[in-house]
């Protein structure tokens, strides 16, 4: 899946990308198990074709898109993003996709569309852990409209120039690089435009721990651990000090204005 190099500001970090083997073997994808090695082991059962994504809700042109149609909807770009997991580790990943705003413009949201909800596939036949009590399935994530329209918000179809491996959320997933990794819904089947803030999967599971915004923020700790530092997978040595986490994961220049005047301790 070739992509042209992105020209969006902040779209290509110069940091060293994390090894392909690490990116594809250390994943949180609870539909396939809670251990980070589970998705690579179990996700081969996922059927990524045929695949459709229903785009619906407060839009003038709702439509069920076929995957092939989505792949060609806009030129594929390579974006090299930092990815910061809420658990305190990070990677640098060369994704392939296009700005979600391209799709949003085409379906013409109405004035009532204040938020976008992303729903992942929840198929107990191919996803062995759907039905476990860990989360309320299907996995739901959400963004505010202006966040969804931001050019850095990437609808993603590939990584390292290849089609997404199943364990990385094939065939289509989200990447919002200034938020914690769990905001990036995987294996998306529905994109819904709504008026009210969606109840997201992790927010429902533990509201005081995972807020709707979940912007990377070194000054707001998770109740169980500090978010001030992180370990870069495959790069930081076993005994080297963890690196400091940057505000908005280092994308403050691009996205800081979205949150001007907001109390980020309250809207964590």
């Amino acid at each position, binding site marked *: 899946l070739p992509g042209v190099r992105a020209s969006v500001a902040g779209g290509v970090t110069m940091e060293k990308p994390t090894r392909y083997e690490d990116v594809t073997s250390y994943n949180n994808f609870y539909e396939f198990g809670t251990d980070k090695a589970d998705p690579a082991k179990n996700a081969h059962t996922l059927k990524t074709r045929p695949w459709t994504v229903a785009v619906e809700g407060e839009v003038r042109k709702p439509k069920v898109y076929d995957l092939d149609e989505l792949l060609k909807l806009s030129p594929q770009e390579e974006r090299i993003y930092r990815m910061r997991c809420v658990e305190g580790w990070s990677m640098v990943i060369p994704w392939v996709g296009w700005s979600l705003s391209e799709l949003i413009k085409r379906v013409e949201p109405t004035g009532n569309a204040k938020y976008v909800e992303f729903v992942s596939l929840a198929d107990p036949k191919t996803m062995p852990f759907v039905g476990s009590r860990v989360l309320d399935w299907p996995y739901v994530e959400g963004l505010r409209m202006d966040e969804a329209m931001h050019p850095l918000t990437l609808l993603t179809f590939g990584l390292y120039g290849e089609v997404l491996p199943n364990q990385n959320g094939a065939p289509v997933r989200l990447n919002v690089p200034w938020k914690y990794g769990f905001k990036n819904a995987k294996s998306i089947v529905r994109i819904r435009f709504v008026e009210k803030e969606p109840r997201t999967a992790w927010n429902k599971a533990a509201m005081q721990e995972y807020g709707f915004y979940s912007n990377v923020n070194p000054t707001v700790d998770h109740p169980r651990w500090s978010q001030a530092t992180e370990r870069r997978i495959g790069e930081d040595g*076993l*005994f080297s000090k963890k690196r400091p986490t940057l505000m908005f994961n280092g994308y403050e220049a691009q996205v800081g204005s979205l949150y001007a005047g907001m109390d980020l301790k309250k809207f964590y």
Partner: protein
Amino acid sequence: MQPLLLHPAAKALLFALCLLPFARLFHGAWAETLGPNPAEALIRGTGDWALRGLCLALAVTPLRQWTGLVALARWRRMLGLFAFFYALLHFLAYAWLDKGLDPADILRDIAKRPFILVGSLALLLMLPLAATSVDRAIRALGARRWKQLHRAVYAVALLGLLHFFWMRSAKNNLGEVAVYAAILALLLGWRLLDAWRRHRAACSKP
């Protein structure tokens, strides 16, 4: 069975078995085969074995009574010490790999996070038990007092379980926690039942 357990090689074999998880983790760290996040693998691996060691040490007495294999009692001390060894490694791995051996940072973490506090408490409680595990200490304390002191291991096990529960509940991932909880409930429940039976027997004596 009994002579087999009493064989000098049996104890050495158990010692080697207890050292095996450590050897595997150490080799994995050195050969870089612990996966993409070796620090996490070391911290979690040593913690897992501390909890398993506690369960094994606590299983000795019920097993001895159940099977009548008195020779099992000789293993209790070693299993308990190995639980302490892995708990100590667990703390060291956390302090070194996660906190860069910064005492101020570690203390701040303990004060701020209940699950770290509970884990540290369990380790602190294990210190006097490990220190009084030699024969000389038993003689110096007297069997009765020594026994009383070592009942603290029940608190250590419960604190360890709570520590594990709080850590896992961040991700709602409680399957394994339930397994340990069931094992400890069985081991501690058996003791309660045993104490109650003894108490009744003592009362009904003429």
